Structures are given as C-alpha cells and as structure tokens.
C-alpha cells in the first residue's frame, strides 16, 4: 500500500487548506511468467476543513435544461418547474443561473445571470408560461444550456463550480442521438470548459444508456426518477452537493508504461490525455469535504521470460480556487515470479481490503452490463455474466459480509431473469443503482 498526502492552499480569504490523499492497495504484487491481471484499489480521500475555519462557499454556475416535449405535459412538467424554483430559492446573488427549455426547438428562456431577486422573479414568470410541445432535441438543448453558461463569463470563473442539469423523460430523437458520441462530447465539454453535466431521467421511456454515460463522462450524477414527485428532491439534493464542493475536477492519473493495459472497472470516465503516451486520466468529479471515492483499476501485465520489476504510477490532481494541485506520483512495484510463488501469494497474502472493493465494483459492473444485455434481449448472456462474476467473487470473498451480499444479489438477479425478462422500469432502477454505488454517490430521491 502507498499513501501520499497533498495539501491545497487557498487564495486570500477563500478556502482554507484541505488535504487530499490517495491510498493505493494492489491485490497482489507478484506476476506470473506468462503474464497476469492485477487489480489496484485507489481510494481518493478529501479531508475536513480545520475546526476554526469557515470557508467561503464556492460560487455556483448552474444551467437548468428542461424537456418540454409533448410527453412531459401534465404533472411531469409541473413538477419540473417546481423543482427548478426550489433550486432557484437556494441560490444566492453570488451564483449564476440560466434556464433553457427544449422540445424540437431550443429556447434560452434566461441567459446566465447572477441569481439576484429580480432575475429570480423573471425566471418564475417565464416558467409559468412554459407548456409541453413537440419532439426532443435533447442533445442540442444540452449543448445550448452549456453554452449559455460559457457565454456569460467575461472573466475566469475563479474556481467556482459549473454544472448543467438536464431533465428529460424521452429519447434523443432529433439531432445527434448516438449515446457514445454524446458521452464523448460531455467529456470534452468538461475538459475544455470546466462545465459538468448531471442528468435526470423521469419515467420509463428515456434511454438510461444515454443519460448514464453522459453523467459519468460529464463528472456529474445520473438520477432515475420514478415519479414526478422525486424531481424536486434530486434537484435540491444535488444542488446541496454542488454548494458544498471543497475540491473540483478531481482526476486520478495512472501510468503503467507502454505494454501494460489499463482497464477501469468502476464507473468512471477514463481517457488518454496524450495519444502516444501511456498515461490514463480518470474523471472522479467534484467532491465535498470529508468524502472518499474508490476507483478499482485492472492492469494487464505481459508475459516475460526473465524475472523483472514493473512499476505502476498514480497520483491525484484537483482544482481549488482556479488553481490546480496534485500530490507526488506514487509507485507500486510488481515482480515476476514463478507459478508456485504466485500461488502461495494468492492463497496466503492477497490484500483483503483491496479485494473487498474489487469484488463490490465488479459486482456493480456486472449488474449494469447484465441490465443492458437483458434489455437488448440477450437474457442468456445476462445470466451467464452474472453467474460467472458471482463465482469469481466467491473465490476470494471469505467471510466478508458485503461481498457475500453482492454474490447473493447477482445470483438472485440471474434467477429473476430466468423467470421473467426485465421491464423498462426495473432496468432503469437497477442501472442507476449500480452506477450510483460504483461511484459512491447518494440517492437523493428519498432524502
């Protein structure tokens, strides 16, 4: 295990120093001569503020992008409006807000402006006039919502948080509709403009395979709303998180070298910042104080003929007050050894704390993937995946109660699928739950 501490520093009377630490736990250290896959659990922790310090709240820039397509008519749109008002009431004049509505047209109802009483009055009046209409230009609506924030900034945001809340009940059926392409754009918008994206899907008709990855790539959270009544709780809940962000744009950077493969098991967006380099950057998101996130990564070591050492490097990078900070690179060493030594390590010296998170995150990934397979009609494939992963976790779960519970959940789901296919509501609920648990995020619907 390696630990490295880094401290961010505030400017003037803004945020006090807050510690960010990275704890890296490899499951094992030995590699077989024919090559091996090895997991590392990376735990990113944000410390607490000093006891006698009350830091200024980070100013927030929020774009509310609401679907007003025909299917949102009635209670859904009415509740979306109430949720928008609830969010507005909790913002103050140091924050910025804008309102965008879309069906097959996109209208910027209120360009980004400071949330003064006058602007709030204007937004309330405009919301009252909005009615449900036509098809769903979701992609364009989202981009215009992000651009409205970007266009309002004549000065650098000075480290504030910027987020777009996208609420929809439907599919993207106008403009660009490919989920992977849209998720890639969400990652690009976050990287190039600092504007994150959170998505809110209501009902049973939206595409969770679009909204989920959009939020992951955008560094935000995906919320599945079962009823219109849950809109307000999730809007207000996520707003509360944004208003208490202590460190922003947290990224885990990894470097295993040219011929080592890097696969992120947990539900985080990973990219290669420089095409010909071996570094991988994992978007963790904006984090409040006293928070921790686990990122499980699987590294593939190639085969070797002679004994040799291999090293994986890791560090955390984040922003506070517009300045970027990082901790020094940590090194994790791995050694090629004969099969007998590797077997002994496997049976006697595996890191159980690391395997706890490895197992949990593999279980969540299996649930997400099985949900998608089932929705595509491949029930047999879904069951096979669930049972395979359950069996693998059982090999190292021991008496870990959470891992045993995860195994039970996987096998139960497989059994349920054998009895009846997963319906849309169930699929969305399972998908969103698996994503939320993998990312260590809260369920605001019932808070």
């Amino acid at each position, binding site marked *: 295990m390696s630990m490295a501490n880094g401290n961010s520093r505030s400017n003037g009377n803004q945020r006090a120093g807050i510690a960010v630490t990275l704890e890296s736990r490899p499951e094992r250290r030995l590699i077989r001569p024919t090559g091996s896959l090895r997991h590392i659990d990376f735990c990113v922790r944000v410390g607490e503020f000093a006891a006698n310090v009350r830091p200024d709240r980070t100013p927030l820039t929020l774009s509310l992008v609401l679907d007003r397509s025909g299917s949102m008519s009635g209670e859904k749109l009415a509740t979306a409006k109430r949720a928008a008002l609830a969010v507005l009431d909790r913002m103050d004049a140091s924050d910025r807000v804008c309102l965008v509505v879309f069906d097959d047209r996109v209208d910027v109802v209120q360009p980004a402006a400071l949330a003064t009483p006058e602007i709030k009055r204007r937004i309330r009046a405009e919301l009252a006039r909005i009615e449900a209409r036509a098809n769903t230009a979701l992609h364009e609506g989202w981009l215009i919502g992000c*651009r409205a924030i970007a266009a309002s900034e004549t000065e650098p945001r000075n480290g504030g948080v910027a987020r777009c809340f996208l609420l929809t009940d439907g599919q993207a059926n106008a403009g660009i509709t490919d989920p992977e392409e849209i998720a890639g754009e969400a990652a690009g918008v976050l990287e190039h403009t600092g504007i994150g994206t959170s998505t809110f899907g209501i009902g049973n008709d939206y595409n969770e395979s679009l909204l989920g990855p959009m939020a992951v790539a955008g560094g935000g959270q995906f919320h599945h709303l079962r009823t219109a009544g849950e809109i307000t709780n999730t809007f207000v809940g996520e707003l509360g998180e944004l208003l208490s962000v202590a460190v922003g744009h947290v990224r885990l950077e990894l470097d295993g070298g040219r011929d080592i493969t890097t696969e992120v098991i947990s539900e985080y967006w990973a990219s290669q910042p420089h095409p010909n380099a071996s570094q991988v950057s994992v978007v963790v998101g904006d984090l409040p104080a006293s928070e921790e996130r686990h990122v499980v990564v699987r590294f593939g070591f190639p085969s070797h003929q002679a004994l040799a050492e291999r090293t994986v490097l890791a560090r955390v990078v984040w922003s506070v007050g517009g300045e970027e900070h990082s901790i020094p690179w940590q090194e994790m060493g791995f050694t090629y050894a004969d099969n007998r030594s590797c077997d002994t390590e496997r049976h006697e010296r595996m890191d159980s704390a690391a395997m706890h998170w490895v197992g949990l995150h593999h279980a969540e990934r299996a649930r997400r993937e099985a949900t998608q397979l089932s929705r595509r009609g491949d029930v047999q494939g879904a069951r096979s995946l669930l049972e395979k992963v359950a069996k693998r976790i059982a090999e190292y779960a021991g008496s870990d109660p959470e891992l045993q519970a995860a195994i039970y959940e996987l096998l139960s789901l497989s059994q349920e699928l054998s009895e009846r296919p997963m319906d849309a509501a169930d699929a969305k609920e399972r998908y969103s739950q698996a994503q939320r648990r993998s990312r260590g995020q809260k369920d605001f619907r019932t808070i």
Partner: protein
Amino acid sequence: MTIDSITVTVYTPTMSIDDRGMTIEELADLVGVTVRTVRYYITEDLLPGPGTRGKGTIYTQEQLLRLKLIRVLAEQRLPLAEIRKRLAGLSTRDVHALLGEEVRRAHEKEGSAGAQSPKDYISTLLGRARSTWTTPSPDPSHPAAPQAQASPDPASSGASSQAALGSAPGESWHRLPLAPGVELHVRGDTWDRHRNLIDQLLRSARASGDRRDL
C-alpha cells in the same frame, strides 16, 4: 564436454527490450535521435555510459528515460549546461516524474496556442450537430409547423418550391416537396454546403415517384 568460459547472450523472440536491454541503435530509434547524438550526450556527461564498450553493448530502461527527458528539455531550447544541472542527482523515479511533467507541459502549451474559448468550443460542437440535423416528425400544434402547400414537380431540376420558416429566432428554412405529404426542410445557411445531397434526395424522390406511376 565442458562449458565454454565465454558468456553467450541468447535472444529469444519473446524477450522484450526490458529484459535484454537495448543496443545503441534501438535506444536512438526509440527516442527519435541518431546514434551520433546518443554518443554526444554521453560524451557531454548528460547520459551515463553503458559500462561496457564494443558491439553488443547494452543500454537500460534508465538510460532510455534519461535520454527522453534530455530530448524534451532540448526541444524547449534549454542549454546543455542547464539540462545537465536539472538532471544532476536525479533518481530513476525522479526522472520518470519530471519527464511526465515536461511532456504534459509541452502538450498544454501546444494546445493553448490554438485553444478556443469555452463558448467557441461548444459552438463548434453545436455547428457540427446542426449539420447532421434530421427533420423531426411534423407536429401540427407546433407554432413553426409548415403549412400545406401545393407541390410543384420535383423533377424540375432546381425548380423547387421554397418558403422560409422562422423555426428559431434568426433562422430560415426552405421547404422542398418530394411527394404529396412529404417534404424536405433545409436550413438556409447550409443550402450550398449540402447541395449535392439535396440534389440526390430530389432525384431519388423523382425516381420513386416515376416507379409508382408505372
């Protein structure tokens, strides 16, 4: 039979550079410099020598990393004396970390030279999206929904019925009837860019209409 006292190095196809080390040619090739440059850096005490001489001399990962770092710093036009000073006393770990920082800094510098503002970046994405925008299914209740018009013969090349629609503030759209009840909508500012596509669609609609009449 006795074993010869001369050490023989055996190379197997599966052994990588990490195991057997590199020749000076391989080292130079990996970093994109000439063998002569590598020897020069060794002479200038920037790069530690291999320890042995002659054919078959081996260079290690450590030397590879140092050479990469030397090249990155040299590309920043740092004098050799400055590079020597920066590398003095660095461990392999330090060299690796510094190399990563310098590569990142170099890429950021390249990126910022042509960087767009956040607003322009998003506008570029929007522009791309709108160039692939497909006609949504018409909604008679939509204020901007097209009104029914008598359709001219789409077989008349270039003689298409056009009407500007105010779909979004400042935008105009052209309506091209393809068949009774079927229209193609083209945004005014994209007309020239997609002229070939528009012509193809019109020809295809004409051909389809001809077949129906048979």
